[in-house]
């Protein structure tokens, strides 16, 4: 193939996924833009945003890739049954790792900002926000990834090509939306905002 043919094929293949993540990213941006008061009130929250959003992509993208491989290899069946041990283990591991990474991000952000002498909200508040946001988006993304990968596979789509755009789009939107809910929920419990 010539350079031009390679470029045209790569461009056509990637454009739909980038378009989907563009829509998701803009929606997430609108929610973030509406959170200016919360970002001002909880110092250090903006520093956490990229880490929390990337965790969603890293963890649930990996869950989707694992489910796609499992379906290809016949390790799991494309049906949601509570009795499927492998499916439950993969979902539980994704949720647990997502929560650990979110709590780790909150702790690391608190430590780094404190060392830099930058004003930062209390560690309890940041941990609470990371926990609530990580749990809510984790549950939602497990449900979305399992449902779409299984439904897509049963209808004859390659689950590998569904996972990337799906996780980046829904991960961004739900990530920021549940961050907003988490900030307000923790504010109800701990006071403030």
């Amino acid at each position, binding site marked *: 193939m010539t350079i031009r043919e390679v470029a045209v094929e*790569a461009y056509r293949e990637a454009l739909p996924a980038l378009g989907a993540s*563009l829509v998701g990213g803009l929606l997430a941006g609108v929610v*973030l833009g509406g959170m200016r008061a919360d970002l001002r009130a909880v110092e250090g929250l*903006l520093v956490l945003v990229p880490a929390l959003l*990337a965790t969603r992509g890293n963890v649930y993208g990996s869950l989707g890739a*694992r489910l796609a491989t499992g379906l290809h290899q016949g390790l799991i069946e494309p049906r949601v049954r509570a009795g499927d041990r492998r499916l439950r283990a993969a979902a539980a591991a994704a949720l647990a790792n997502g929560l650990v990474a979110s709590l780790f991000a909150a702790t690391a952000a608190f430590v780094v900002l404190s060392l830099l002498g930058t004003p930062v909200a209390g560690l309890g508040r940041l941990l609470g926000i990371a926990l609530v946001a990580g749990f809510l988006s984790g549950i939602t993304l497990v449900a979305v990834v399992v449902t779409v990968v299984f439904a897509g596979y049963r209808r004859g789509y390659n689950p590998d090509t569904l996972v*990337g755009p799906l996780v980046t789009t829904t991960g961004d939107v739900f990530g920021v939306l549940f961050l907003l809910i988490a900030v307000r929920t923790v504010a109800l419990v701990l006071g403030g905002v």
Partner: protein
Amino acid sequence: MATDWTVRAITRAMLPVLLLLTLVELGSGLVLGSFEATLLRYPSLLVLVPVTIGTAGNLGSVLAARLSTAFHLGTLSFAPDDETLAGNALATVALAATIFPLVGLGAWGLSALTGSTELSPWTVLAVSLSSGLSLAVLAVVVTVVATYAAYRFELDPDDVVIPVVTNTCDVLGVVLLYLAVLVLV
């Protein structure tokens, strides 16, 4: 080697890399924190943040996935005149040139709909396009270096290159957004 489908085995394979990537992403968070006052003053720039991070990471991951596959198939050589390398690099820049104008105008339009905009659409467009195009060039460099390093150290590029490139591009996206805001706003 395939990982067993148990919570323990999956966690052992995933968690160390995940925590390392979280620290990398914290770097981009600190860059955002350094111009927080500007972002909070101009909502259209704040709207740009998630979409820039997402598009940056996606551009990198698409390129990395394609180069990894070519590498596995043995159709990739690391020469500047290699068709696969040059074609994919060209496609990455073309994709950035298509997507980032929409990112900028979309961010401005949505901020105008949902609140106030102090910046002109041209400023937001210039910020988005200049950071996006320079990002595409850097994404190509990072991906080629990471794929070449995986090849030299005999690592599977699928395991290593995609997460490294995606998260590095996230950080570069924020750094370039910062630089564009510094120069243009």
